[in-house]
């Protein structure tokens, strides 16, 4: 293994936290989706690192599934974004508080 597994995990963690920060901090829907993407990729990194560490190919297979799921998710969410944009004229996440208690 070229790099100690811990470092890979740390790297993935940092990446994940950045994605999370983006989701939490940003107002714009698109940026939130980007944040989600980053988080998913961080997961992918961890998976690949794991498969390299345990010398199993399953990790990589999972990354493929992960990518499939991500693309499905992006497809729908961007469709929603378009829909919301047309309906509400804005993409500010806080404006969509229809579920307010």
């Amino acid at each position, binding site marked *: 293994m070229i790099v100690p597994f811990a470092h890979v995990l740390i790297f993935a963690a940092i990446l994940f936290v950045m994605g999370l920060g983006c989701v939490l901090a940003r107002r714009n829907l698109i940026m939130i989706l980007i944040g989600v993407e980053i988080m998913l990729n961080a997961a992918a990194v961890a998976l690949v690192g794991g498969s390299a560490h345990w010398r199993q190919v399953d990790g990589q297979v999972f990354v493929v599934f992960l990518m499939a799921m991500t693309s499905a998710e992006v497809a729908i969410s961007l469709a929603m974004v378009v829909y919301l944009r047309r309906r509400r004229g804005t993409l500010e996440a806080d404006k*969509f508080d229809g*579920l307010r208690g």
Partner: protein
Amino acid sequence: MNQTLLFLIPLLPLACAVANMLFGMRLPRLFAETLAVCGVAASFLLTVLFWSYADGDGTRAVLGTWLAAGEATIPFALQFDALSAPMTLMVTGVATLIHLYAVGYMHEEEDYARFFGLLNLFVFAMLAIVLADNLLVLFLGWEGVGLCSYGLIGFWYQKTGNARAGTKAFLVTRVGDVFLAAALLWLFALTGTLSIGAINAQAAGFAPAVLTGLTVLLLLGACGKSAQLPLMTWLADAMAGPTPVSALIHAATMVTAGVYLLCRLFPLVSLSPAGMAAIAVVGAVTALYAATCALAQREIKRVLAYSTMSQVGYMFLAVGAGSVAGAMAHLLTHAFFKAALFMAAGCIIHLAGDENDILRMGGLARRGPRQLFLVFLAGALCLAGAPLTGGFFSKDAILLAAYTQGTPLFLLLWGAGLLTALLTALYTFRLVYLVFAGEPRGYSHLHDLPQLMRWPLWPLALLGLLGGLLNLPALVGGGEWLRHRLGALAGREIAATHGTEWALAGLATGLVLLGWGAARWRYARFRGEWDNPGSRFLLHGWGADAAVDLLVVRPFTAIAGLCALGIDRALVDATLDGLARQTTACGERLRRLTSGHVSTYLAGFIWGFLIILGWFLLALVR
């Protein structure tokens, strides 16, 4: 005739009462009235018929068991013996005459059915007290009498004042009943039974402290009903009821129930000297207190009410001095002449057009019917204790009993008795002069007097005058019939030399003459009533009413208010409502959390995630 027929004596008035109450209004008026009078007259006749049953230690009749639970078995039982027989005779006799008088007095009242129903019910309750063999039947009569006096005092209920007087009477006597109930419970705990015979028999076995306690409780119970200190404030206001009621209940029968109770339980009461002293003191003090109040009263019936309170005080003094015969003699004669006085007062009020205030009467002797003046005078002479009248002999016997007791306390009480005798003579003759002598001051013309209100007075006045024969002392060659009849129940043997007896008789006569002279000097030619603070103080019964209101009624209402509003509203409800409000407030805060912004939700999610992470780290570390 077997004993159970004895039950007819009390049950006949009860039957007539129930009949009157249920169907009174539907029956023609005459039928309802005759039904009422016959009920009482019949029981009077039965008492005469059964008179022989009372010889020796009397007969005990049992109708059936009333209560039976655990070890408490209480039957319906009557005891017709030497003590209860004369009392029953007096009650039924006086009641019959008063019923006749009431028919005349209430002839323009349309709610007669209720009146006669209650009056009959009263006679039943009084007979239940008199004939009771066990204390629970006595208690039944005791409360029944209280109920009837409540109903009859508040008979003219349209004026709330009357109803309030009725309520006051019921509540004050009810306080007395509480003490009686306490004694009753204590006796049951001690002896396991409530029958009076058994209690009197086992009385010797009780400890002195228990005896004194019981006697004090019985005394307070008797004070309630007999309007003695400290439970006497209700009697004066009870005059709000119709006059026959005052005559029957608040002169002849109910107020003497307390004395009868003490006489009935005399074997128990006499065993505790402290108890006897207490009874005597209460009697003498009340006699003095009532006599002073009677001096300043303006209404004719209130004077007589305070006079009754005073005379009953004498009876208490007699029981305290150990002479049951003296007490019973005075009780019987007093019942006769006081009933006569009250009925005469009723006639006077009727004549003067419902005028109660004696200051606005006067000159009735010449203008009113001659008979009325003579009857009233006869009653007044008995009340004042003029020599040879019934009142004289019975009161003298009581003073003699007190004097011969010998202890310094009883000498003091004997002195108080003498002073009361003087005051009694004074207020009696004041009454006579103000009503009958001088010029008419208030009323314009005299109403006519129905026949029925005239002739029932005579028998009672005569019985009052001849009351002395009941227990004529040996001094004047009398056979002391009542004391011999009572036998064992008669209490202490009054041993006194003839010299002291003559001296006391002379002293009493002197006091009466003194009283009469003073009254003649002051009131023959009426020069207006003194209106100084002293007389006002006496008028309001030494401010007793105000004191009771201040010390008892107002604090009670305050505490009740505290309970009702304070504890229930503020404390219990508030805590519950507070609880409810807190939960809604928490709900509100939680609601604000769901702000609809995605970011807050995600933040929540992250916090949760961190906590789980922290938990695992902790688990890892430990």
